């Protein structure tokens, strides 16, 4: 650390280098922190989380009971102990609340005054954050599994919607209408993602085990389909040609720079694809348990030198090194299946929500005092003095016999 600092002072290093090193270290020390709590509002499982990118302060959560909550993540109390307060809630008592489970929530990428939620009640609602009333409601024929707005789009304001219907719908916020349909999938669309690099590029994953790339300007069809065998006909059975997984593909995530795409499927595999060529990079992540019948929301870190993927895996969150496929650690804290996780790029915090109604905050442990500090006062003792619960309590009577 000191080396990095001095090199930065001397101007030898790129400023990015120090930042990357520190954030990587922080990600590697992610831990369940007892100082950070998130209010328990949801009475049911939590399906989706989203942190806005403008300030990085507010987090949206959607629950299986249709409730949407906005949390304030900022700790302004200047104390380590902090509970993320729920700023406002679209509760069951609200007139506009979703009838069924909310599957996806997303902030409007350019302003916190608006967010979009889609639900199993076959609607997608565009909310005004100020009044907590829907400004626009889109109705669909089937359950809506997911939707996504391009985080970088300047020329369009399209929301891609994946539903039970194999056609991917494009809704325009400008006109408030469903303007376009992307045909090609043969199963329900479980996940849609806009590329963070090219605003017209869209990736969709479906239960027909295919992942398609689209250019929304091109009307005729998809750009290409991801093939797990990279076109090697000899390895692929005829029906598994051009498939990304052997089961349903239920999770999609671009890396921060948009160069790679990570997909998960119910064949308990996770694959990393080159998003420009559609080539399978053949990184082996091992078995990634995945039983979700709905879309799976997972996250990829940003700003670390080897990037990390945070994937819900049963009742824990698995942290993988993105390019090597190495399992770094398992974050265990939930008591039931984890459905979603969201990475906070500024503070390297991770938030995860699961069926046990908890939103857990995984916070990097502060750097341990250096050797010189430790000499000054034993850290362990200090901690013990701080909290009597950490002390051992061996009864003295057991000495006697």
């Amino acid at each position, binding site marked *: 650390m000191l080396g990095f600092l001095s090199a930065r002072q001397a101007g030898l290093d790129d400023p990015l280098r120090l930042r990357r090193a520190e954030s990587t270290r922080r990600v590697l020390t992610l831990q369940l922190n007892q100082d950070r709590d998130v209010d328990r509002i949801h009475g049911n499982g939590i399906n989706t989380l989203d942190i806005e990118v403008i300030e990085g302060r507010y987090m949206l959560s959607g629950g299986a009971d249709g409730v949407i909550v906005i949390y304030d993540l900022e700790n302004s109390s200047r104390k380590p102990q902090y509970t993320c307060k729920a700023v406002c809630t679209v509760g069951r008592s609200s007139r506009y609340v979703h009838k069924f489970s909310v599957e996806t929530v997303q902030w409007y990428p350019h302003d916190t005054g608006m967010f979009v939620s889609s639900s199993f009640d076959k609607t997608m609602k565009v909310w005004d954050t100020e009044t907590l009333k829907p400004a626009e409601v889109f109705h669909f024929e089937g359950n809506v599994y997911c939707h996504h707005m391009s985080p970088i789009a300047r020329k369009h304001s399209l929301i891609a919607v994946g539903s039970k219907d194999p056609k991917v719908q494009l809704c325009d916020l400008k006109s408030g209408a469903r303007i376009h349909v992307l045909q090609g999938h043969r199963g329900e669309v479980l996940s849609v993602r806009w590329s963070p690099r090219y605003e017209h590029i869209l990736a969709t994953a479906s239960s027909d085990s295919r992942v398609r790339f689209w250019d929304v300007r091109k009307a005729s069809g998809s750009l290409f389909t991801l093939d797990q065998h990279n076109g090697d006909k000899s390895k692929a059975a005829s029906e598994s040609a051009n498939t990304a997984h052997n089961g349903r593909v239920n999770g999609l995530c671009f890396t921060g720079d948009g160069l790679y795409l990570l997909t998960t499927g119910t064949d308990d595999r996770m694959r990393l694809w080159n998003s420009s060529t559609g080539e399978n990079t053949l990184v082996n992540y091992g078995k990634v348990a995945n039983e979700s019948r709905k879309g799976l929301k997972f996250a990829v870190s940003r700003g670390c030198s080897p990037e990390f993927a945070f994937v819900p895996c049963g*009742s824990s969150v698995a942290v993988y090194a993105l390019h090597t496929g190495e399992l770094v650690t398992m974050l*265990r804290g939930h*008591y039931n299946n984890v459905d979603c996780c969201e990475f906070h790029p500024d503070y390297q915090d991770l938030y995860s929500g699961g069926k046990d109604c908890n939103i857990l905050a995984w916070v990097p442990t502060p750097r341990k005092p250096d050797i010189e500090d430790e000499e000054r006062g034993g850290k362990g003792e200090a901690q013990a003095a701080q909290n009597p*619960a950490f002390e*051992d309590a061996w009864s003295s009577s*057991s000495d006697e016999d």
Partner: protein
Amino acid sequence: MDHAQREKLSELMEELTTSGEPQLNAEKMKEMKKLCKVSNDYIEYAYHLIMTQLAQEHAEIRLSALQVAEQLFSRSHRFRELLVSSLQEFLELTVETNADRPLPPPREVAHKLKTLAIRTVQAWQAIYGQAYKKLALGYHFLKQVKKVDFNDVQVRTLAERKRQEEKEKRLERFYKEKVTKAVQEMEEASLDIEQCLTEVENCVQLLAPHPTDFNLGDLEPASASQTPTSASTGQHGRSPALEDEQPCCSRDLEDKRPAGMRVVEEEEDEEEEESETEEVSEEEAFIRSSGLMSHGYTLELDISTDVRVKETEENEAVVTTMKDLQRLISTKHLPAVQSWVQVFTKAGGNEALLRRALDLKSALEGALQRHKELHIDYKRREQQVMKAGADEEEDDDLEEVPEKEGFEPHIPDHLREEYGLEPAASSSSFSSSSVQPVRPAPWAPAPSRRREYDEEQDPTCAAATLRILKQRLPSAPPTRISQTAGSAVEPQGGEGVQNEERDKAPVIPFGLDLYYWGQEQPTAGKIIKYSSQHQFWVPNEVEEEVENPELTAQVKSRYITFAGRFQPVTHKCRAPMPSGTLCERQDRVKCPFHGLIVPRDDKGIPLNPEDTEKEKKRHEEDQPDWRDPELMRDIEAATGEDLGSSKTFGKGRKGSKGKGKGKKKYPNLTDLKQSTNTSRSRLERKVFNKSAMRRVTEAMNRMDRRKHEKFANQFNYALN
């Protein structure tokens, strides 16, 4: 970490967790704590041991492991850290958070384990919840997701509670239905019941008015209240109405003393009167006027409500009604009312209905009670019924006799004279009169002999016909003889002897031999064989008679099997058993386990020395010298083959070998396999045995194949 210490730790853990007891052994626990205290390494090791024990599929092991964990948790920070880090598994294994992994049997212990685990988590949360985040999370998870009510002693999961609620709801609905049904029934039946009750009341009034109905308060003669029905009561003296006719004081006195005493007293009274006529004092006057010796008498009026009603012709109708009503109440109304009461009490709530039903019930029971108190004497009627039955039986006997021409089996008593027959012996012995018509004349009593003879000369009277009949039939039918044998030998011996004899005589089923008793049957045992059934064509020998000696014998003889009388075995085998008791088997000659039964003393040792020797010899045969158990075991251990040593000699050394066998590894734990070792499972093992199944299928296949071979050329069998 010292290897020996580790060994000891694991040993301790095993002993603690497999004790099968609800509480831990304090000594061992102390020892364990002492070991763990030394260093965190030991704690880590102990933690792993506990987790492995918790994963065992036995609730008792888990319970003990949980208790150990509880002990360590409260003491060591390191242990807390470790346990909290894997609290998910811990809860899964103890609180059953995962529905796919239910707690292992036995069930009661599993329930206990769950309760204890939840209490423990709650206690931990109270103390350490602040410090260990995951613990708090787990607690909240249990509380909010699994809906564990920590205040509820009966720890129930959400599903269980829901099920319970549903059950309650269903029951409630069910009861509601039942109640409405019962109310309806009650509405309909209450009129009937009330009518029935009034009828009973009236009947009782008619038969025997209740004592309270009389004016017993005043001692005036209340003969006016005497009802005609009370005259028919059995005990006149007891009837209050009759008692009133006597002076009120003396009647109680009479009741109190025995008859002899009474007479003596009366005499004394007379003597007194005679001797002391002169001195007339007040006392005497009292005595004279009242007949009592002193003023100090206390009078106890024992008015018995114990009435006995005899059925007579006069009250027959009332009694019949009464009886019908009683039957109606006891069979129909009372059960119905009882069921209503049950329904109402179970459903609860509606008290008015319940009270009404209870009132009805008590009224009905009161009616029954009153009926009982009357002690109506139905005996006469029953006797009548019985007699009628007896008559019918006798009639059956009569029918067996072939009816002869001009012979009248029934001659009414009052017409017997006219028919020229002597009167029947007595009307009471009606049962025996059925045989009389055919009784031979010479056996008849002597006095009327002469007149009888005259009568016999008159061809128009029945006696003559009878004589002719008798002459024609030299001997009476054998059945009749057997029946009237007693009277034949001793014509005037009276019915008593005859009946006695008849009682003694064995009852034999009627057979051919009796039918042809004393007659030679020419055709007996001959079978006619028709060699041809043809209409026209007839062979040379038209018919062929074959003599069958068996059939002949059958006609003439009768087999009676004499099996003797069953005598229960009173002795026991009493051979000493390995358990220390004596064999309790009661075989007649030979015990299937201990051979011939010989007399033995209290300790099961044969009394005869020869028997002892024989027994020894038999034992030696069982265990030949070369099959020395120790040697066998050694051989088995060396070769690895099972020579059957454990089978033959296993019984004796089970305790010594301890955990030699897998099954008896932890003798203190509840044996989970025991519940599966039922007669059904054992049978299943036999019946669904692979080889047995194969045998059965083979046999069935063989049968099928045979059918195929037989009917192979028929199309409808060819296909299957």
